[in-house]
């Protein structure tokens, strides 16, 4: 049994971490840190946890030494407090954007500020088990990637790593409102958001830089907010290298994801859910990926779907924890999703 602290526990990602970690057989949640609700009951903010815990939110100063700290604070808070947390825990899993990029100049360009701890950027292992599993087994600092970045990376990784596509691709990402966080402003009022299909980042979204980094290609991403609370779907457009057809694409997906516990290749010929669709993944840690090929045009379309709070955040972090601790990778993550939802 390990003792963990969740910092930023009142947010949506923090709440999802608490849900997973409270139910995890090898974990004791010792602290749920919130600067907004110290002393208040956790299940007052996260009502789905009623009867699951009597935990109260605490301040950061009240956190005692523990085995693992999860950081789900607003962006920029983690990089200014990292030394505090590395001094209190053996492993830190950072779910903020602060350590997702390894180049301080790229960070400045995408986040609009200088990095406060650039000397630590290279120390973080990216929390993408499908690409970095061996490094995660011994990692003490893990940076869990952005939700749309995970979907984009998993949608093209087998093809990029085998150089089956030209080294540039477009990513059309759709996201639910929970991706904006629990303190989102006026733009996320129900009256403003309901029914909207809002292109909020036609260019320059931060997750674009992560996709480029992990795929080793030039990524161009557009992000749109859609009528959903949870869920991310990323549709990727790429050009196949000459001579590459549907058969090679299928083989690459099969070979790379055959043994992955949380990636499923979905490109069905029949049924209502023929291609990846976030609706049936809510609450689960799966990322479904699918593809279609226009061989004549050399055009490849891939699709990835996930729950942004799960495989796009808290679930992925717990998967990384399981790998780091040598536990079964799906421990505490076996929920298969809902249908209908």
């Amino acid at each position, binding site marked *: 049994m390990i003792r963990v602290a969740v910092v930023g526990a009142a947010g949506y990602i923090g709440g999802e971490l608490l849900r997973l970690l409270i139910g995890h057989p090898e974990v004791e949640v010792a602290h749920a840190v919130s600067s907004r609700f110290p002393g208040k009951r956790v299940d007052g903010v996260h009502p789905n946890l009623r009867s699951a815990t009597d935990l109260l939110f605490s301040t950061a100063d009240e956190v005692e030494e523990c085995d693992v700290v999860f950081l789900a604070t607003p962006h920029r808070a983690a990089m200014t407090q990292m030394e505090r947390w590395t001094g209190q825990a053996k492993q830190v899993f950072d779910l903020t954007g602060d350590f997702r990029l390894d180049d301080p100049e790229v960070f400045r360009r995408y986040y609009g500020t200088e990095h406060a701890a650039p000397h630590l950027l290279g120390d973080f292992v990216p929390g993408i088990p499908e690409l970095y599993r061996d490094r995660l087994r011994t990692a003490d600092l893990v940076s869990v990637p952005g939700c749309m970045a995970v979907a984009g990376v998993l949608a093209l990784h087998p093809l990029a790593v085998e150089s089956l596509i030209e080294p540039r691709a477009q990513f059309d990402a759709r996201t639910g409102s929970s991706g904006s966080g629990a303190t989102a402003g006026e733009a996320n009022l129900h009256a403003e958001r309901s029914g909207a299909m809002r292109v909020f980042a036609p260019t320059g979204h931060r997750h674009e830089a992560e996709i480029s980094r992990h795929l080793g290609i030039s990524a161009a991403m557009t992000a749109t907010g859609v009528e959903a609370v949870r869920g991310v779907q990323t549709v990727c457009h790429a050009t196949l290298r000459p001579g590459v057809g549907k*058969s090679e694409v*299928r083989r690459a997906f099969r070979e790379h994801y055959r043994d992955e516990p949380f990636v499923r290749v979905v*490109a*069905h*010929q*029949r*049924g209502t859910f*023929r291609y990846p669709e976030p609706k049936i993944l809510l609450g689960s840690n799966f990322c479904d990926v699918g593809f279609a090929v226009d061989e004549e045009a050399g055009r490849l379309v891939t699709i990835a779907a996930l729950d942004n709070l799960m495989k796009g955040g808290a679930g992925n972090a717990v998967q990384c924890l399981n790998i780091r601790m040598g536990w079964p990778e799906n421990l505490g993550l076996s929920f298969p999703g809902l249908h209908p939802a």
Partner: protein
Amino acid sequence: MTTATTQACPECEDEVQLSPSVRLNEIVECAGCRSELEIVALSPAVLALAPEVEEDWGE
């Protein structure tokens, strides 16, 4: 056929298990891509995509 066999799906190339009692024109489903496949020949079994009605979402 007297023993279970496998054939490649003509759509996705996944292996499709065929029971020994499979009959001509029987429809089986591929687990990989969920295509409906028709047995169009026996000994050896030959699979072909079964015709289907496609969805139209506003085209």
